[in-house]
């Protein structure tokens, strides 16, 4: 098993955080894992992305030109990364930030979720990325939700630890909503 997912969005949407969380969750589940952030000029203009690669073998390349999945938190991320998804892949589109996007590709499953709205409903719009991650993780099944929850204390800075419960809630809400989609 080798699963590579690109997570992408505007800076400030918590992209690198959910990437890290997914990675450490995978480790907790006993899998091998690498995390590769975007860096340098790529980050100017306020976008961010990262690649998380999970494997039950040693991980080869931590970057990929044809990911198994993409978590696209905004319109430009769909445009940039979705076409690269390989056969049998999974795409999550945050429709709150890409309302009119109608991307589709043969062999690629698309989850459309208004993550900001769901987060807002949960009382904190900043949880949108957690909703997205929950949805993605729930649907693709590579990392179990419970390991993501377990990993939260390592990823969130100390001062945000009081928000762990609401983050768990967001992960679960995402997973549930994604599940209901089809």
């Amino acid at each position, binding site marked *: 098993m080798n699963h590579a997912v690109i997570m992408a969005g*505007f800076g400030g949407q918590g992209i690198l955080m959910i990437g890290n969380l997914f990675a450490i969750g995978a480790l907790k589940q006993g899998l091998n894992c690498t995390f590769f952030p975007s860096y340098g000029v790529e980050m100017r*203009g*306020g976008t961010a992305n990262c690649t998380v690669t999970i494997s039950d073998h040693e991980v080869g390349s931590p970057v990929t030109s044809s990911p198994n999945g993409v978590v696209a938190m*905004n*319109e*430009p991320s769909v445009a940039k990364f979705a076409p690269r998804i390989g056969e049998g892949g999974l795409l999550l589109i945050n429709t709150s*930030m890409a309302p009119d996007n109608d991307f589709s590709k043969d062999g690629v499953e698309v989850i459309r979720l208004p993550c900001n709205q769901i987060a807002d409903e949960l009382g904190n719009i900043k949880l949108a990325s957690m909703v997205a991650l929950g949805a993605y993780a729930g649907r693709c099944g590579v990392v179990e939700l419970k390991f993501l929850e377990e990993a939260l204390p390592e990823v969130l800075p100390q001062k945000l630890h009081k928000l762990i419960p609401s983050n768990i809630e967001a992960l679960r809400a995402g997973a549930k909503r994604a599940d209901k989609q089809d």
Partner: protein
Amino acid sequence: MPRLTIHEDRCKACGLCVEFCPKDCLALSDKFNPQGYHPVELVNPDECTGCAICAKMCPDVVFKVEK
């Protein structure tokens, strides 16, 4: 009345124009532009004198001003 053309897609919502408009004519809108920002809009067109301070302060050359 002066005419202000706002190239919304270019706006990065830095707020400098809003801050420096002497007539408080500008504000950031609620919508998103394709870059993911809330672009500026002319909320007080009647007050606008066409002084072009907004245009000069804007780092992203969002405005055209005629009068």
